[in-house]
């Protein structure tokens, strides 16, 4: 909080015997915003990329505006592999490959499937509940992506260095939530003090980096329903 001594007015009239001064002191509190930096590392201290960090002010705050987003399918992979969208957002799934894909989700937050299609014109899906949505392709089992649907306006995805900067966070205490597709257990919660800007260091207990292989393996069914 900043106090602005906004007005100090002194009027003098030279023809008036008695100088009269008037001092007006007005203190105007205005909301201050700050940037909060979060550093996400794994159990060995290595930076974690694509961790979802959301911040919810204790005093509440504005709700995020829904967006129109895309998760593309190219070279038989989803791009991006992790994305954050505000609740109510619409997401399209353009297929840039010349083969058909079949996008689906079993996640309770949003169950849907877009059976076999090609081309970049795909039906938009509206994600109207917060939570994690795991996406897959029914033809190519190695294709997996995650959508994090959030109802807070302050969120970010960690960079390769593990850093996330949440900008223009309102003053006051807040809670941070950190999630990653390979996180063991529930999202990590961190309380943020009123005057804390970070960097807030968060260590995640991660599962091994398991990705369904495309290389020949034990049983040729391992590479998907081909």
């Amino acid at each position: 909080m900043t106090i602005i001594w906004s007005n100090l007015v002194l009027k003098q009239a030279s023809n008036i015997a008695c100088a009269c001064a008037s001092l007006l002191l007005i203190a105007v509190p205005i909301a201050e915003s700050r940037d909060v930096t979060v550093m996400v590392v794994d159990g060995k201290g290595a930076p974690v990329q694509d961790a979802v960090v959301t911040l919810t002010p204790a005093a509440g705050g504005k709700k995020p505006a829904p967006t129109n987003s895309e998760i593309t399918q190219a070279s038989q992979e989803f791009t991006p592999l992790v994305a954050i969208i505000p609740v109510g957002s619409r997401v399209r799934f353009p297929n840039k490959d010349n083969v058909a894909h079949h996008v689906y989700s079993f996640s309770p937050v949003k169950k849907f499937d877009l059976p076999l299609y090609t081309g970049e014109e795909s039906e938009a899906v509206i994600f109207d509940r917060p939570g994690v949505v795991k996406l897959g392709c029914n033809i190519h089992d190695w294709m997996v992506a995650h959508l994090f649907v959030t109802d807070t306006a302050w969120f970010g995805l960690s960079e390769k260095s593990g850093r996330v900067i949440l900008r223009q966070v309102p003053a006051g205490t807040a809670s941070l939530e950190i999630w990653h597709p390979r996180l063991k257990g529930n999202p990590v919660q961190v309380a943020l003090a009123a005057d804390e800007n970070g960097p807030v260091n968060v260590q995640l207990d991660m599962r091994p980096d398991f990705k369904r292989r495309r290389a020949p393996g034990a049983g040729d069914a391992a590479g998907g329903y081909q």
Partner: protein
Amino acid sequence: MRYSCIAVFLGFAFGMAMGSASAQKIEGPAWDVATGFLYNSNLSNAERSTDVESDFFWQMEGGASWSRAIERDWRLRARAFAGGSVPFEYEAFNQARLGTDLELGYKHGLGPMAPTVRAGLTVERDFFEEDGRSRWFITPGLRARQPLSESVGVELHYRFDTSRAIAPLFDGYGNEGGVTLTWEATDRLSFSAGYRARYGDVVSYAAPPRPDIVGVADVIVPGTTTFNRTLTAYRLEAFTQTAHASVFFALLPELSLAVQYRFQHTTRAAISYDNHLVEFGIKAGF
């Protein structure tokens, strides 16, 4: 003649697939290459140790496959392949082969945990240094796979195989069923192990006299020199049980090292023989 017609039909199907490879919805070609060494401890399928001949082979196979999702749950896959194997010692087994696979797959539900069933047909033309072995080898079959978890799956299979060779000794058929368990331990390391049982024709070599084999053999060819000495070849129906285990290690997303071991125990009446087969190779898919 019948097999030639099948081959021509399949060749035509492949031509269609290849011609359409650039069209939308057809995936491919996906290339696969495998090469490595195989050791067979009992190439002569002999019961008595004095008749046993073993050998190493260098083998390779390459293929191109196309696949297409034809309906929500149905998928068609076609593959053309060529390969061969070169024995270190017994040249009769020098082999080149050409073939095609056609497979129709059904997936019951969505996602990697859904069970799949595949019906397939393989038609293969084998050419051997020992002419009599050269054959048409045709194998229709069924496979059903049920993932048990994200990394473990079980597969059941049944297949019928039939050979039509230049020499009647190498004609034959077989019915085989089996179960295989696969485990993808990490993103790089995977294992499989299983059991299969086959009842059908085998060719066994022995030094005469073997009245016990003569009593059950369907074809007897005396005086063969396949193994650089004179042995009698017998074709007989027998029951073969195989236990197998494999380890795959992915060096790259497209390249794996594979080590496989098979133990085969074959019996017919009072006759039996064992084979130990060890295979070490590199497999690539891209």
